[in-house]
């Protein structure tokens, strides 16, 4: 793919040749490339070079790891034991009757009222905008309730649960994302270091209003974006199975998602398996 092989108006580009070699072209484009290759020695030679380079790279790729891959036996036995252990622990059968019922509704109403008051004060300018120094003082694993009180749209449980299983939240426009970062005193966010998180997840009715978005770092172990994603997914399941009412789920996650995690997973620290839970994509 030297200078003499670059794309011209009359030849197939290197990128198209590679896509053709990898079977990534549409049938129509593939037919065109094939027809061109049948007629053009120059492009066929380039195609051959690409294939040769692939072969050479694959050999290097495989050989560099040879002798370094840990032996299969021990690794497999350990995995089998861990898998058997995981399989023998039944998933928690969450039932509404097992959840703390005392004052649940009252507590939730107080939480919502506080959030509304904070929101009103912020919008009226009574509460100051946080400066970066103040931002550093708060718990970075949790959103600033003045900036991110949580916003939800009035959807019914049936509407939310009919949306099906969504792997990730809708993308937030970049301009909105940068506003959110700026509000949190992050002027130059490092790609893939944060998840631009919906405090109330879309599958729980959360909206993409800026008051429902916050930059959640991946580095705030153990309460990081993976644990929050796992909680969102779990609450969605509880709501759709009829084991938790939507309003409570929204209020609990908006008020203090870490407390909600502890409450609904019945653990003080995130479950190890949630360290790799993946639902939403990192921001970049």
């Amino acid at each position, binding site marked *: 793919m030297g200078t003499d092989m670059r794309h011209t108006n009359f030849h197939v580009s290197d990128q198209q040749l590679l896509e053709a070699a990898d079977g990534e072209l549409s049938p129509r484009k593939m037919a065109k490339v094939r027809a061109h290759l049948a007629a053009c020695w120059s492009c066929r030679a380039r195609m051959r070079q690409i294939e040769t380079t692939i072969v050479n*790279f694959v050999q*290097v*790729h495989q050989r560099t790891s040879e002798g370094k891959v840990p032996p299969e036996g021990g690794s497999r036995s350990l995995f089998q034991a861990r898998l058997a252990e995981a399989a023998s622990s039944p998933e928690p059968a969450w039932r509404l009757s097992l959840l703390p019922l005392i004052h649940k509704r009252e507590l939730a109403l107080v939480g919502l009222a506080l959030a509304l008051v904070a929101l009103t004060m912020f919008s009226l300018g009574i509460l100051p905008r946080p400066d970066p120094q103040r931002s550093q003082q708060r718990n970075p694993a949790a959103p600033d309730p003045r900036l991110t009180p949580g916003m939800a749209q009035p959807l019914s449980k049936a509407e939310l649960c009919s949306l099906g299983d969504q792997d990730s939240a809708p993308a937030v426009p970049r301009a909105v994302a940068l506003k959110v970062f700026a509000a949190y005193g992050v002027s130059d966010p490092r790609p893939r270091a944060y998840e631009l998180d919906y405090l109330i997840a879309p599958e729980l009715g959360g909206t993409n209003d800026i008051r429902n978005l916050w930059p959640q770092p991946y580095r705030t172990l153990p309460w990081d974006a993976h644990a929050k994603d796992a909680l969102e997914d779990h609450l969605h399941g509880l709501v759709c199975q009829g084991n938790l009412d939507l309003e409570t789920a929204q209020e609990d996650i908006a008020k203090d998602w870490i407390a909600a995690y502890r409450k609904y997973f019945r653990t003080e620290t995130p479950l190890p398996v949630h*360290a790799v839970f993946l639902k939403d994509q*990192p921001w970049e």
Partner: protein
Amino acid sequence: MDLVQPADSSARLSVRTEARSTPASNPSPLEAEVKLLFDELRVPVLRYLMTLGLSPPDADEVVQDVFLALFQHLRRGKPRSNLPGWVFRVAHNLALKRRHANRSGETVLADAGDAAGHLDAAPNPEEQAVQRQRQARLLAVVRALPEQDRCCLHLRAEGLRYREIAKVLGVSLGAVSLSLQRALARLTRADGY
């Protein structure tokens, strides 16, 4: 539990008791499926994780966690489409996290000498020397590539399609195609064409 809910509670109890007492001898179909995927994908995933700079023991631990997460994912009835792609995606994210925790941001690729130690039996020492030099050149080029290009290359070498690579890395399909083309162009030049 990926078990069909039995009609009565006594039946449910018996299923769970059995699962607890003889898990190894009586694995559920789901366990068997995950084990099969583990056997099939362990080495490719390990190879990929090592290209991200993880040490072999770290990579091995990540692989274990990935497949346990896969088991939980399937047990909860989550989507089953393209499970190898899911495995690489989770492995990639977990590896970045581990790398960050280890504060070893630099990708450590194997030395050219390591690759040279595993050459095929060539007809004569001269050919072996040529092959060794070529591999050293290619390794140097790979090491100098931007991380995204390098990841695309290694994931493609492990058999992932462009769409799967895009999902693993969280980039567009066009970006994957461009990264691969750019990387191969550099490798081709280093290969003496």
